[in-house]
């Protein structure tokens, strides 16, 4: 009899695409953490003699309009995209789990109010809302993370609610209640842990979404502000220098594409490995 963890790993590692996604995400982690060591130049080093230089031996991915090394800026930019992804999704997962569990566990008026709130949040065009809030309260990286988080928890809440609706009828919950466990204890110690699998999948996929939103905001000029490098704001320079410097457009976008692809593949892989309906395909 294998442990669930090992079983999961065996299914996951058989899926080549999922593994590729995992490797991309791990690579991104290393690059972001080791940025000070792997980046060939200081990302903010202005070199007026080498402005808008195409990719070459000295600058593998070229330089921007101030002569800064694009590769170094992209390496440092990975920190932004990594941290925005994780913090924003952390916020949305926590909010989603709280609202979803309260709604599913208590039902009644609590459920009705929370579900109505979810409907409202889903009807407001999210990108409009993010744009307006960021522009009005200021575009610090923390504001960006928080606003992406609080506009994207609805999916998680719905998932958790559905899990709670079925799990709260289970016997182990009845047993916990019989020995006198409080509602809070039942919610957080007993039911929540059993509803984590679908949340994990949607969290990984959510990171991909958050990375895309952050880069769009930065591209529009209201996200991460220069001189702090982010993939989105390098692309803004790409647009401004579209006619002369293609490398400013090509490489940061490619980085976003590969990163988002990595999270998506990883998320789908985790989903497939956790889905018992797909287990029948192999002999256990």
């Amino acid at each position, binding site marked *: 009899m294998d442990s669930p963890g090992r079983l999961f790993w065996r299914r996951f590692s058989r899926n080549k695409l999922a593994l590729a996604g995992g490797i991309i995400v791990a690579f991104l982690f290393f690059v972001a953490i080791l940025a000070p060591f792997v980046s060939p130049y200081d990302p903010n080093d202005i070199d007026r003699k080498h402005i808008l230089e195409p990719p070459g031996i000295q600058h593998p991915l070229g330089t921007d309009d101030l002569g800064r090394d694009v590769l170094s800026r992209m390496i440092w930019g990975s920190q932004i995209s990594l941290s925005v992804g994780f913090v924003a999704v952390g916020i949305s997962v926590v909010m989603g789990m709280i609202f979803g569990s309260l709604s599913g566990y208590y039902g009644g008026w609590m459920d009705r109010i929370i579900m109505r709130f979810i409907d*409202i949040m889903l009807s407001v065009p999210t990108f409009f809302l993010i*744009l307006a809030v960021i522009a009005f309260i200021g575009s610090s990286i923390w504001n960006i993370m928080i606003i992406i988080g609080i506009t994207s928890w609805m999916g998680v809440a719905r998932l958790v609610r559905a899990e709670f609706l079925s799990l709260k009828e289970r016997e182990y919950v009845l047993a916990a209640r019989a020995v006198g466990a409080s509602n809070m204890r039942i919610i957080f110690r007993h039911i929540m842990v059993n509803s984590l699998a679908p949340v994990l999948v949607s969290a990984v996929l959510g990171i*991909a979404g958050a990375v895309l939103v952050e880069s769009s905001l930065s591209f529009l000029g209201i996200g991460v502000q220069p001189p702090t490098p982010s993939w989105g704001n390098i692309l803004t320079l790409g647009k401004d220098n579209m006619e002369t410097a293609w490398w400013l457009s090509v490489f940061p976008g490619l980085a976003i594409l590969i990163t988002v692809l990595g999270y998506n593949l990883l998320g789908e892989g985790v989903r497939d490995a956790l889905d018992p309906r797909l287990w029948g395909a192999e002999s256990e």
Partner: protein
Amino acid sequence: MVPTLFGITLISFLILHLAPGKPTDVLSDFNPKITPEARERLEKMYNLDKPIVVQYGLWLKKIVKLDFGESFSTDRRPVLDKIWDRKQPLPDRRLFITFMLNLITMVIILSIAIPLGISSATHQYSLYDKLTTTFVFLGFAMPSFWLALLLMIFFGIHLDLLPLSGLKSMNYDSLSLFGKILDRINHLILPVFVSAFTGLAGDSRYMRSSMLEVIKQDYITVARAKGLPEKKVIYSHALKNAILPLITLIGLSVPGLIGGSVIMESIFGIPGMGQMFFMSVMTRDYPMVMSLLTIGGVLTLAGNLLADIGYMLADPRIRAK
């Protein structure tokens, strides 16, 4: 529906009070010659001297009567007039432009996504299925603004085939009717292609999994067993059920389309609602921002309602209820 509408207006209204300082500060900053009396008059106009609940109530009362107030920008025109300018011909009105752009994109997406999803479901695990799945993953991960940039560089600058921005050329007015239509289409190719490509992924994936689920069911086996040709089994028996979830998905995609139009319209310089929203946000034109948020929410609700009606028309089980 009504409480949701209420919630949308509340969120749009609260945006006004998010920023530090008074909303009218912006107005007076842009116009240093403003007198204290004038500022007071402005505060009265937006009822900023009253408690916040009263402000909301008064604002709501105006919104219900479709009075969205005046823009803070220098032209001081009514908000509604800027979105739906009656003096302009229909194809030049902002709301119309955004609406048409999304409609065209949607039609293209569906006419490709549905057959694509069906055929990759009926050929599950084939090379074709793998290729379309790869394509779908790419479409999912593709930042739309990046794709737009690359296509602009390639088709607009290198090949010099397509216009880079706007909806009309400089000589638009001197063109014949046919020339005008051709000019419009030329300007629309890139934005529509980009939105369609990035939007295609989700719908075709959804169609595929929905189809896969349906063709496993007994009634499909029965249809095959009684000797119906495979084409008929798929397109007239399975499709009817497989397409139902897609209708809901279309309704749900409306807020995404509206939000996405900000990026598309800004990058391609298209004078639609998205571009207007972006400009209003940047200049802190509160009446515009609040109104556009509300209108966006109402359009989303309308989309959901249409999807519900469509679902009802397509599914006799729901109609019976």
